[in-house]
């Protein structure tokens, strides 16, 4: 056998049809409507009259081989052997026979999985890697999500929310978790601590300077060594310098906090897509269970559930009731930090006499 390295086959994104349920292939592009027989179950009806049931299941997202094989065994024994994953890491089983639905659900529950996450539920929190694997994290996404989903379980398996709720988490201010109806993101509160012994050897200094959103970093000689210094009055503590320059440590056991944002909505339904807005910060980054963050999320969800109308996503609800009412109803403090001062910020001020009393 030759020692020559094997050249890669640049096959790219695989064709999904080879793994697709035959009923889905047959009716591709020809579906008529869907119904929701029970939480966690979708029934899609094709124009041909064919039907397919989908059972949506919450998992721990980071799957071990035992769990993955168990999910496969269930697919073979109780379903038709075809699955897919949603954008929020729920696994979906598709079956063409209604009689298979309930035994499949029963088996999944028996094995400790959670069936739900459809329609107006709180579905799985989309999240990032965190301490388990990321090189710049301020917190652990998997632990935050596990802790919150333990408490939001009842909302995952039911249809009690006014509309669907998408929660996201992110472990740094790059916010890989994305926009969410509710987003739990890291918010640093102190400038980076710089190890000047390492900067010159580890960091490409001009690109670190260029990376700063507020031009607070400049080259400097520190103790005779070429390094970087931060204008701490300008610094917004975003941590953008940390990935290209690990000696500029932004994470801090005490000063790295969590912040909660609400009203991000990717859909074009009703209003145009929206970004989420800051509602709470200074929340302790408190492993292993992060109770303070979960309490605020639950408070927001409870208020939304009680006050919003059917079909209102969190952004639609707040648009109707106004931000002062949101802070009043949730009891969250309104501070000077809620008032935007980033570029274009005046568009976020109230230039009208539209005021609710």
């Amino acid at each position, binding site marked *: 056998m030759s020692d020559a*390295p*094997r*050249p*890669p086959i*640049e096959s790219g*994104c*695989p064709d*999904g049809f080879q*793994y697709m349920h035959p009923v*889905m292939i047959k009716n591709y592009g020809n*579906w*008529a*409507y*869907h119904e929701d027989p029970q939480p966690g179950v979708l029934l*899609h009806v094709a124009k041909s009259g064919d039907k397919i049931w989908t059972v949506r299941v*919450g998992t*721990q*997202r*980071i799957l071990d*081989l*035992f769990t*993955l094989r168990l*999910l496969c065994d269930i*697919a073979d024994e109780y379903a038709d*052997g075809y*699955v*897919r*994953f949603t954008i929020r*890491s729920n696994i979906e089983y598709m079956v063409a026979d209604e009689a298979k639905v309930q035994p499949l659900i029963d088996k999944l529950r028996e094995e400790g*999985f*959670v069936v739900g996450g459809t329609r107006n539920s709180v579905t799985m929190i989309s999240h990032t890697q965190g*301490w388990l*694997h990321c*090189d710049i994290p301020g917190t*652990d996404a998997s*632990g935050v999500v*596990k*802790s919150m989903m333990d408490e939001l379980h009842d909302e995952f398996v039911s249809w009690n929310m006014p509309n669907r709720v998408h929660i996201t988490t992110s472990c740094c*201010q*790059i*916010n*890989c*978790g994305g*926009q969410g109806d509710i987003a739990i993101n890291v918010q640093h509160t102190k400038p980076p601590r710089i190890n000047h012994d390492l900067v010159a050897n580890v960091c490409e200094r001009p*690109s670190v300077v*260029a990376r700063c959103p507020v031009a607070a970093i400049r080259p400097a000689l520190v103790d005779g060594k070429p390094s970087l210094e931060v204008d701490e009055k300008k610094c917004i503590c975003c941590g*953008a310098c940390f990935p290209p320059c*690990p000696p500029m440590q932004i*994470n801090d*056991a005490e000063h*790295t906090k969590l912040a909660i944002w609400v009203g991000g909505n990717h*859909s*074009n339904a*009703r209003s145009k*897509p929206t*970004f989420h807005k800051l509602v709470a910060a200074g929340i302790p980054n408190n492993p*292993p*269970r992060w109770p303070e963050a979960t309490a605020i999320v639950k408070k927001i969800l409870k208020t939304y559930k009680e006050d919003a109308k059917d*079909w209102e996503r969190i952004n639609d609800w707040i648009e109707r009731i106004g931000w002062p009412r949101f802070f009043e109803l949730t009891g969250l403090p309104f501070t000077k930090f809620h008032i935007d001062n980033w*570029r274009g910020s005046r568009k976020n001020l109230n230039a009208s006499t539209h005021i609710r009393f």
Partner: protein
Amino acid sequence: MVKKYETPMLDQLEDGVWPSFISGIRRLANEHPEERIQSMCHSLLGQLEHSYETRKGYWKGGTVSVFGYGGGIIPRFSEVGDAFPASREFHTLRVQPPAGNYYTSDMLRQLADSWEKYGSGLITFHGQTGNIMFIGTTTENVQHFFDEINEYGWDLGGAGPCVRTAMSCVGAARCEQSCANEHKIHRLLVNNFMDDMHRPALPYKFKFKVSGCPNDCQNAIERADFAVIGTWRDDMKVDQDEVKKYVETKGRQYIIDNVISRCPTNALALKDDDTLEVDNRNCVRCMHCLNVMCKALSPGDDKGVTVLIGGKRTLKIGDLMGTVIVPFKKLETDEDYEELVELAEETIDFFAENALEHERTGEMIERIGLVNFLEGIGVEVDPHMINNPRECSYVRTDMWDEEAEKWNRRMAEKAAG
């Protein structure tokens, strides 16, 4: 000898009703027959416990790749490898999933078997960019694992400043709202740029995402540099008998409150005979009424896509939405699809030449202005691209007559068909 660690904080994450990732890792550590996997997982738990105690991460990047590629691997070297040696190297392979994230149990087992030979036994479906994440292996085994799965149809995704793994929704395979062949668009676009994915040489990342309708389940407008969203331009379809059934079941008040008055352009009216009247010229295809009454209302027949460019998250200038570049494009013939790929090629070429280092397309457009970008990629201006015209008078308009003439000519050509 497998080294174990005390993990009192992580142990607390094994309680509760939601499936626990810690229990999964611990099961690999305690019950997997292979000592290599046991050691790696015990060591990983040890380092993670250390992170929980100190509230810090201890992974550092580096350079790891497979032969012939420059990207696709997330290298991870432990900063505390002396204390947790069995997971000292713990790299992730990003592997592109099939469009729509479909799998058979047989294929998942085959991937699991390969990963069992070379990796930690931990897999995520999927990371936020959309890749299958095979989490935790050594530099040497990265190559072995890739060689094995590459032989049966799997390729690495993107990592670094390159075209990234794309995402598309379940779409036409199982959704009545689908207005496009998401699967075909996804694969055609991203597979055209394999060189730009596997050999990172762009200013920064470039993401494609495809959603079959304006519900945009893939978050394409918020998260993709190049978002392709299915839509239609003729009249939506109304099954009046089904409308009447909704009214009968839910009541007039419910339909008025939840459908009629929620229409963002007041394009709906519920008539006295419980039929629905739609002002299709003013419908903006927001999907709300179709979502509520999916049995009665559906997209029209003249389907196509809208293309929006420039979405991204916070770094560096703040979050940006993608904005309309192509209001409507038919995707029927091979030429139609080719034109879409050409638009993506023009966009990536312009991005490669004009963006600053670590600048996304949206930031580049913000810096140079949309018009310069449009001229660069050869797309004409269109009023669908804006919320409203310019509000500030500080602009030079000395070429006004020529530009107005261009528009008049375009409109005349359009009228002539």
